[in-house]
């Protein structure tokens, strides 16, 4: 089925050697629906065994990209290659890609075991070996006890785990996850997130994960691709994305970001009475009035009478407390401080807000 399944002696529970994913390459994909451009020259290379998350607001084209990769949609232009081969002519049924969908996609007329065995049945595996393998997969997702249950007898989380087992049963070259957790409640979502990541790493399977939940993307992916208007704004490791966003959109979409008015000149920006350097890379506006983008942890706050801001709100978040401060010109910023020192910062308190001195990202004044 794949070039990798026959090699290796250290086959794991799924009967597949570790590190058996295929490289995937998307080149200049474009796709329009009616007059709407869903994809606008998307290019992405995914290494074997890598988990890449496509993150973006709804309508940014991330699901379209996934559906083109799966073979459910065709691109107007551009190429999709898996293992170095163009798969344009290969129908979805022959692409060997496992997919887990956002909505519950188990076949209602089949038990959990039959659902997991469906792909193997389509591959003409004999009933006995099919059942054995489906049982192994169910055990892998911890649902052996539910093998005979029908989808309507399973909870949402269990259904998605069966769907995952079903997708993995065919030993796919690529695993596609289309917001598989968004229908689940918070606790189940967290558990399943870890389980998916663990299995993905163990099986070494190349995975594309589509989500609009940045926390999910940052915590699970090797690399995250942030999408906007049908193309990728930035593809980077989660910490890189968070600390060195390439564009203002990425900066503001990932994590919380404050916008503070500043004056740019000669690559240095003055804001809140401090002059700091700016990041290299990204699009730099011309000298003059700009907005400075700073994370809540990149600001310092001190309670001082006659300071440049007033505390308007505070939210306790465990070890950290997030303080909202109103500056002049109706600019509100959020600052994270250690909860142990946040005691005096009550709403109404006058405070001094300043930059911590590290380089910042600047963007055009809004």
């Amino acid at each position, binding site marked *: 089925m794949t070039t990798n399944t026959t090699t290796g002696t250290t086959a794991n529970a799924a009967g597949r050697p570790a590190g058996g994913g295929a490289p995937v390459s998307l080149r200049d994909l474009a796709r329009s629906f009616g007059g709407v451009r869903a994809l606008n020259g998307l290019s992405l290379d995914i290494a074997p065994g890598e988990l890449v998350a496509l993150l973006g607001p709804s309508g940014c084209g991330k699901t379209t990209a996934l559906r083109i990769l799966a073979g459910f949609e065709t691109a107007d232009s551009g190429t999709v290659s898996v293992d170095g081969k163009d798969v344009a002519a290969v129908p979805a049924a022959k692409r060997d890609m496992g*997919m887990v969908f956002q909505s519950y996609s188990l076949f209602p007329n089949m038990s959990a075991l039959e659902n997991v065995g469906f792909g193997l049945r*389509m591959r003409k595996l004999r009933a006995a070996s099919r059942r054995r393998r489906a049982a192994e997969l169910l055990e892998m997702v911890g649902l052996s006890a539910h093998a005979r249950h029908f989808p*309507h007898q399973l909870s949402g989380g269990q259904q998605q785990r069966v769907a995952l087992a079903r997708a993995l049963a065919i030993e796919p070259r690529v695993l596609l996850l289309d917001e598989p957790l968004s229908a689940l409640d918070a606790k189940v979502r967290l558990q399943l997130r870890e389980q998916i990541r663990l299995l993905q790493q163990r099986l070494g399977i190349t995975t594309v994960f589509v989500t609009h939940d940045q926390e999910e993307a940052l915590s699970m992916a090797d690399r995250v691709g942030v999408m906007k208007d049908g193309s990728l704004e930035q593809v980077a490791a989660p910490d890189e994305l968070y600390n060195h966003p390439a564009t203002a959109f990425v900066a503001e979409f990932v994590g919380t970001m404050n916008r503070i008015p500043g004056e740019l000149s000669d690559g240095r920006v003055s804001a809140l009475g401090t002059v700091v350097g700016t990041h290299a890379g990204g699009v730099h506006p011309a000298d003059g009035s700009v907005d400075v983008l700073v994370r809540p942890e990149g600001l310092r706050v001190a309670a001082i009478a006659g300071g440049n801001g007033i505390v308007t709100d505070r939210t306790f978040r465990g070890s950290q407390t997030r303080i909202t401060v109103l500056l002049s010109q109706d600019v509100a910023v959020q600052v994270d401080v250690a909860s142990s020192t946040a005691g005096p910062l009550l709403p109404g308190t006058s405070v001094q807000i300043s930059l911590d001195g590290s380089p910042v990202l600047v963007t055009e004044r809004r």
Partner: protein
Amino acid sequence: MAAVIGEELAGGTAPGPLRAARRRRSLPVWRWIILVLAGVYFLIPLYAALRFAGIASFGQVVHQTGFSDALILSLKLAVITTVLTLALMVPTTVYVHLRLPRLRRLLESVTILPIVIPPVVLIAGVLQVAPAYLKSTPYLLGLIYVILAMPFAYRSLDAGLRALDLRTLVDASNSLGAGWRSTLWRVILPNLRTALMSATVLTAALVLGEFTMASLDLYQTFPVWIVAFDQTSGPVSTAASLLALFLTWVFLLLIVTVGSRRARRTGGGQVDLFSVVRHETGRPGTGGS
């Protein structure tokens, strides 16, 4: 069904337990009154017919000339019509749901036409234009009955498909390596069992009871035979129609019972003659980018 409607009727501002109590007190009385009224309305004519026919007539029915021929013809027509209708409507409805969802409204209005156009008009038109080799066989009726059954079959199938997340199921099936035939046969049809059952029941019932067209086409189907035989013996003819009624009823009951037992096993849905009610358990939206 009744419980759901009752809940809506009793809705309002009363808090849960109070509302439930009020419902318990007031509804059963009305339920019984309506049941009795409906029962009287339907059963009195049946009882009158039974009295008129007399028990002895039932024994004579099967020995009457033309009885078995007419019954067999009607049954054959029922089978032919059902098979043709399903073969035509299932792929069409599935295709429209998957690929041409915007055509659904159009299809809905087209399929209502046979109900709006009187059967007399239809058969008169068909007999004008039908070629001789078709007019010389009773199975021409089967072809016309397909048109008559279309509104009912379409609505059953449409309701069944609406209850499924068809797009996702088909995508999932494709991604697992199933081609179109496997997807239709192993994924779509089994999950449409309830709707198929409902379409079958409605189509068969329609064919077994159709009189106007068969009569004008000059073929003696069972309803035509009953009317014709009425000239010979009123009581025996009445006994025959009662017998037909009970047989049809038992047949429908059988299909419905088998259908819902299977559906219960897989959590499919309930067989309902006019709609397919599916018990959805919190399916999430299918939005996304």
